[in-house]
């Protein structure tokens, strides 16, 4: 198991998390993943990277700092994304609606910091 996969395993172990990924911000490609069946990692990676890139541009245009955490709240779950700026990677997690989001965010920020 690679170092990245070990790090992602910490996020995936949080209750309600269906999977975690490291995504190349510029390419929208999966670098490493730890996903449950039924999660299309390739699609999530491409769309999450696109979303993160657009939001980063939006906040820059508004004169704000780049977002530290993106949280997309959907009816049946959540998408969390944390940019690791120095490494140009995005830590992404897909969760169920009842997931422990606070712990998931903490683990994601920690992983992102470790990559920085």
């Amino acid at each position: 198991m690679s170092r990245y996969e070990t790090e992602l395993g910490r996020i995936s172990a949080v209750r309600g998390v269906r999977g975690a990924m490291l995504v190349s911000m510029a390419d929208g490609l999966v670098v490493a993943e730890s996903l449950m069946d039924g999660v299309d990692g390739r699609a999530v990676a491409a769309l999450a990277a696109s979303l993160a890139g657009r939001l980063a541009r939006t906040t820059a245009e508004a004169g704000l700092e780049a977002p530290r955490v993106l949280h997309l709240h959907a009816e049946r779950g959540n998408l969390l994304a944390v940019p690791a700026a120095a490494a140009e990677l995005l830590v992404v997690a897909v969760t169920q609606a009842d997931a422990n989001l606070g712990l998931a965010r903490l683990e994601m920020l920690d992983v992102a910091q470790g990559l920085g």
Partner: protein
Amino acid sequence: MRTLEPWVGPPLEHFLAESEARVVLLMTSAGQVVAQHGFTRSLDVMAAAALGAGIVASTTEVARLMDQRGFGALVHQGSEQGMLLSGFDTPRGRWVGLVVFGSETSVGLVQLFWDELVRELVAVAPPETTQAPVLAENFERELNASLHALFGR
């Protein structure tokens, strides 16, 4: 966007809207253009079609030497633009797609919606019909009709 086959239009429009690709060329494996978006000169289309079909033919042969069925897609990433080249089977035979994209999108997004485009094209493609041979007296008329459809002139 211009197409020779009307059923190609809606899936291709959807792909262009979602992927934000700059240039798209759909052609048969022989290099005959089926649809194009983003080209302004017919000469560029002809050159790109011939080169794209040639590259796919070459990589398919390399895959065969490696006992592989074929490569799904070939991606060249430049500093400002990238290119995706992919061959795929349809009920109308083997087609090749060439997509040029810029920094406003990503290779992951282009690949994602490219796969969706291929699935949609395969689903809506009418079965191949036997076409009448192109006779010499009809050749120029048919060529002009194709050029008009692809370039509006």
